[in-house]
């Protein structure tokens, strides 16, 4: 298992969040998630300006063996989607924390870090899953 980037926050749904300087939050799925899904063949992205509820459906990632919903980790409005994933969904497999980002959200309220996991917490969470 690769190192978890230290500047990100994580969820139990295996998503990561990066707080950007402009107040928006970039979201993707973790290395663990992409590895469990296998080779991705399709990503269904939300619409720009779409309003998201926390834990509501945000995107769908489809691999050769499964399709999974990606849930919005926070409430907010979609300000940008990674259009490149439409033609090149395997970017998520190759670089889940970089080129494989999925969506950028403008949060509707301050993000409460307490609802999310630090890299260490998420690592422990993953370790527990393996047990």
């Amino acid at each position, binding site marked *: 298992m690769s190192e978890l980037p230290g500047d990100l926050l994580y969820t139990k749904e295996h998503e990561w969040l990066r707080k950007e300087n402009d107040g928006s939050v970039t979201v993707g799925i973790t290395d663990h998630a992409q590895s469990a899904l296998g080779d991705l*063949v399709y990503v269904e992205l939300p619409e720009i300006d779409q309003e998201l509820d926390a834990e509501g459906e945000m995107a769908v990632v489809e691999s050769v063996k499964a399709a999974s919903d990606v849930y919005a980790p926070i409430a907010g409005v979609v300000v940008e989607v990674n259009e490149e994933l439409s033609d090149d969904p395997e970017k998520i497999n190759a670089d889940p924390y970089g080129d494989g980002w999925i969506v950028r959200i403008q949060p509707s309220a301050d993000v409460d870090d307490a609802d999310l996991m630090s890299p260490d917490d998420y690592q422990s969470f993953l370790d527990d899953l393996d047990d």
Partner: protein
Amino acid sequence: MPFIPHTPKDTEEMLAAIGAPDLEALFDEIPAELRIGSLDGVPEALSEMQITRLMRERAGQDGNPLCFIGGGAYEHHIPAAVWDIATRGEYYSAYTPYQAEASQGTLQTIYEYQTMITALTGLDVSNASLYDGASALAEAALMAVRVNRKVKSRRILLAPGVHPVYAQVAEAIAGSQGLTFEWLPVNADSGKVDVDALPAGREPVAVVIQQPTFVGTLEDVDRLTDWAAEQGALSIAIANPTSLAVLKAPGHWGAAGADIACGEGQPLGVPLSSGGPYFGYMTCKSGHVRQMPGRIVGRTTDLDGEPGYALTLQAREQHIRRSKATSNICTNQGLMVTAATIYMSLLGFDGLARVASASQQNTARLADALCAIDGIERLYDGPHFHEVALRLDRPAAGVLDALADHGILGGLDLSRWRPELGNALLVCATETKTEADIAAYAGAMRDVFAPTARRRA
């Protein structure tokens, strides 16, 4: 592939394993008032000899009439080879086996069906079929909502030429999921969409255009498809597949083509059979395929580099996506599609075009012969495919009853579906009708309209 029913002992063991007293207990969840205890005309279990006799007696009641009814299902000649091949043991199953390792022949047949239907409709992708044309429209409407996410209205606009039963079925299936269906304005003189009164600002998620229309006329499909696109809507084409051998394919309608095409596959080698089983077809642009319902067979290569066939894009489907599947349809009308594939293979594109042209010409001949009678005229001018709506000077129901006494099923009484048209009758003569058949119908109709005059002559 054998499909062996359980023995009573198997059933008992399975019930015991789950702690259910009897089979009925498994259906407890369904409220009693929703369950049908018995069906009219369906007796209790009979022996094979008894049931054969019963069915023969009932079939005899049909007699051997000449059928001039269209309205969505059409009598075409079906080459004997079609059902001779389709009912071979390898094909003849109530269930379609999809396992790639056991079913290459079946999968290849479906793949070839998909190839033929995409060629006919001029679109990129076909599914393995749906239940029938009407439910295919419901599925197409739901699919359009999934594809066209920018439009939130869930409003589907229907051209007036859409089959009224299709509209009812679509409403019944998709209405409960928040979709609304509204009719576009009709030009009473032409029976087609009133293109000068197309509503602006309705924000339709899709526009449904049927070609040929329910009453056999031809819409300006290019204009309507373009209008749908201008409104931000998807366009859904409903087309009789036989007609597509001579008419422009939906994929070529307007500047960008229809987004989805669907319709009734029965004309392609499936007998009328009192209304079913039939099959629905559906094709779409490749960009929409992730939202298409139903099974799709794809062609691939195996480890040895040989071509092989397998279900593909299954992540749309119920067994993987569960409640988020594109549809609860996880099957297709395998046997009907097998017959259709053989039918299309035997006729070829030219053969299908000859069927379409002969049907169109026979219907025109029939309409001319009938309109020579005082009290009968065409309801609409202009080109028709193989159906023509006639205006009668008396109610169609009585006329049809009188024709039935002559052994003629004279058409579809439109008053049930389009009361605003007055006394109107929809007639159809496919390639199966000879000049003598058409003359017999016209003669019987003259008798019905002027019995005394004929008797004097």
